[in-house]
């Protein structure tokens, strides 16, 4: 079954992208196709997760086109990639609903209708993200990254207004640079080992001289570090994300940086288990947390503040990765899943604030708790979750990481534990500042519209509904934290054991159905 299902999360959105492009003149059909396909991909991802979790190895692989694994392009669904796939498609699906609501709401304001390019590009973005999660060789991972980045360039500069072009230039140049570094890393890896298949690399890289290994590791970590916005490679993020339309910022903030984190987890465990750079990772994690959150406190704009907290909380994941223990990786995986959902929810809530109050400048906001109590709740719950207030999932993730740090017990690990607690408190300060100002503080300027005119309600309902749906999902993470953390823990064990992944790719059981022999009499 995996042979059929695994390529679908990449294939379906790509085909649908082509279809929606053809249907450019029929927005309603475009919308239906996009929703149906992303819903289907979400369903497939859940099936893949259940399947992978139930399989003997905890990982399943398939090679596209029936070639042997060394030659063909393999796709692997193990527990980690399946979890990422499910969380990622949940986000793209939910945000699509929000975008539809906002698109029709904006159109009503007299703006030109949303450009017909949105749906195709958004679907391509989804395909790129899924491809990156499923890729079992470095070059396919690169292609996945490029697909999602190319789509993200278009989405970020949608409409071509001044601020978006400015932000787009920063974003595109930084991404091009990181892709170049990634490609350089790929070239070095191929020159040193003669393969790019991750499973084969896992077997061959250990035999290389230590200096060569470190060089490859640094090249790949720098490339992924830029994409994941790990300090000091994070400066591009707060300048580029907040200018895009809200749903796009939400997907970028929630998902795109985490694809970088996923890639870091993958190469750190599969290719470089020696842990040569773990100390460096821990230091950058500490710097990322603190610099990010201090930046967040200084901001005067809600979306920019959230972008800085995003940078800051990437530090938690790198912390777990740098510990390189089962508990550390389990904490990091749980935190990634939690943070993707929570950050998306917060940006969507910020979009609602912008919609209701006409601005995200914190000084312009006020009294929202009275005017829009629903928005207030939808902001408050994820904000508290982000700060890690018990018993929400943010607290559980942070607690797991703190325990993992304490287990390692080195001075640096303890410093990280302290840094995590401090960052958590400062996050609480940053979001509480916004809360007091925007929601509790009395209204100061009357030019901001206090409530939307009547006819908009039905579209806004979809936006609020999508945000509320995300809030419920994040609360679900809290309620089902036990089994989910267990899943993260098993994923972490698989990662550190390394064998399941390698066995799944290189020693696939013979496919059940007949496979056509490769054409031609190759010896």
């Amino acid at each position, binding site marked *: 079954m995996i042979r059929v299902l695994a390529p679908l999360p990449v294939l379906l959105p790509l085909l649908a992208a082509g279809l929606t492009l053809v249907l450019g003149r029929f927005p309603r059909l475009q919308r239906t196709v996009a929703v149906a396909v992303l819903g289907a991909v979400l369903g497939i991802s859940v099936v893949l997760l259940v399947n992978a979790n139930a399989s003997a190895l905890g990982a399943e692989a398939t090679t596209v086109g029936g070639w042997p694994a060394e030659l063909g392009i393999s796709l692997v669904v193990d527990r980690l990639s399946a979890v990422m796939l499910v969380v990622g498609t949940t986000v793209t699906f939910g945000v699509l609903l929000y975008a539809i609501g906002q698109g029709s709401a904006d159109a009503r304001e007299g703006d030109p209708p949303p450009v017909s390019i949105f749906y195709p590009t958004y679907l391509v973005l989804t395909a790129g993200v899924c491809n990156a999660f499923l890729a079992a060789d470095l*070059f396919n991972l690169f*292609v996945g990254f*490029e697909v999602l980045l*190319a789509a993200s*360039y*278009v989405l970020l*500069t949608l409409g*071509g*207004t*001044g*601020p978006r*072009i*400015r*932000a*787009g*230039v*920063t974003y*595109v*140049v930084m991404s*091009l*640079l990181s*892709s*170049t570094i990634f*490609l*350089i890393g*790929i*070239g*070095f890896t*191929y*020159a040193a080992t003669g393969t790019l298949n991750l499973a084969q690399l896992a077997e061959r890289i250990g035999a290389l001289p230590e200096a060569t290994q470190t060089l490859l590791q640094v090249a790949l970590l720098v490339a992924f570090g830029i994409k994941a916005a790990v300090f000091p490679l994070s400066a591009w993020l707060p*300048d580029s994300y*907040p200018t895009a339309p809200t749903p796009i910022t939400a997907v970028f903030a929630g998902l795109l940086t985490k694809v970088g984190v996923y890639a870091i987890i993958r190469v750190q465990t599969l290719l470089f288990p020696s842990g040569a750079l773990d100390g460096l990772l821990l230091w950058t994690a500490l710097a990322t947390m603190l610099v990010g959150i201090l930046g967040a406190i*200084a*901001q*005067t*704009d809600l979306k*920019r503040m959230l972008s800085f907290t995003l940078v800051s909380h990437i530090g938690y994941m790198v912390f777990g990765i740098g510990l390189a223990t089962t508990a550390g990786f389990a904490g990091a995986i749980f935190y990634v899943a939690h943070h993707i959902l929570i950050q998306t929810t917060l940006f969507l809530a910020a979009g609602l604030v912008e919609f209701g109050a006409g601005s995200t*400048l*914190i*000084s*312009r906001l006020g*009294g929202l708790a009275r005017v829009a109590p629903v928005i207030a709740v939808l902001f408050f719950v994820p904000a508290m979750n982000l700060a890690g207030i018990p018993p929400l999932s943010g607290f559980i993730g942070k607690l797991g990481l703190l325990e993992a740090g304490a287990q390692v017990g080195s001075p640096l690990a303890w410093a990280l534990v302290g840094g995590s607690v401090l960052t958590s408190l400062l996050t609480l300060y940053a979001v509480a*500042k916004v809360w007091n*100002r925007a929601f509790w503080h*009395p*209204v*100061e*300027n009357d030019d901001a519209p206090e409530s939307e005119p009547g006819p908009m309600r039905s579209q806004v309902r979809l936006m609020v509904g999508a945000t509320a749906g995300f809030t419920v999902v994040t609360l679900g993470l809290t309620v089902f934290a036990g089994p989910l953390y267990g899943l993260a823990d098993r994923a972490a064990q698989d990662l550190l054991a390394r064998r399941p992944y390698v066995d799944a790719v290189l020693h696939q059981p013979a496919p059940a159905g007949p496979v056509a022999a490769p054409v*031609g009499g*190759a*010896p």
Partner: protein
Amino acid sequence: MTVDLTLVALTAVLYVAGFYLLLDRSLTRLLLGVVLLGNATNLLLLSAGGPGGFAPVIGIAPLAQMSDPLVQAMILTAIVITLGLVAFVLALIHRNFELGQEEPEPGVTVEELDEVVDDEDDVRIALLAGQADTDDDDERDEPDDFDLLDHGGPAAPPAERAP
């Protein structure tokens, strides 16, 4: 593994020139930098495949004398990606130039229309930090601070107590 020295030297020169151009404020030069970096990386991939040889078609030459087809496939993919992205960046630059021409600001030359612009929020926060240094007895967020810096908006009236 044997590597062609000319290829390596050329790659190095392209990288140096590419990174130098990437640091320029002018967007056109920046784009040229991106193109050079892309080409340099393609050459690097080519040298990663080892020495050149016969075309990798079964029956033309013994296996050992064939060149590595995989790197060439990768380069082909990389070229296509670079081409698409360069076209996109060109469009960005053009749009940036167009926007600058639509709303000309006094004292801005045509060359400067092609340049990277500072982020507005960064500038505002830097200004705020400067203000906080001058009157540091008041550390609370005074709304007036922001309104002074907002473009053209009248200063907000002092906070009115809600009934």
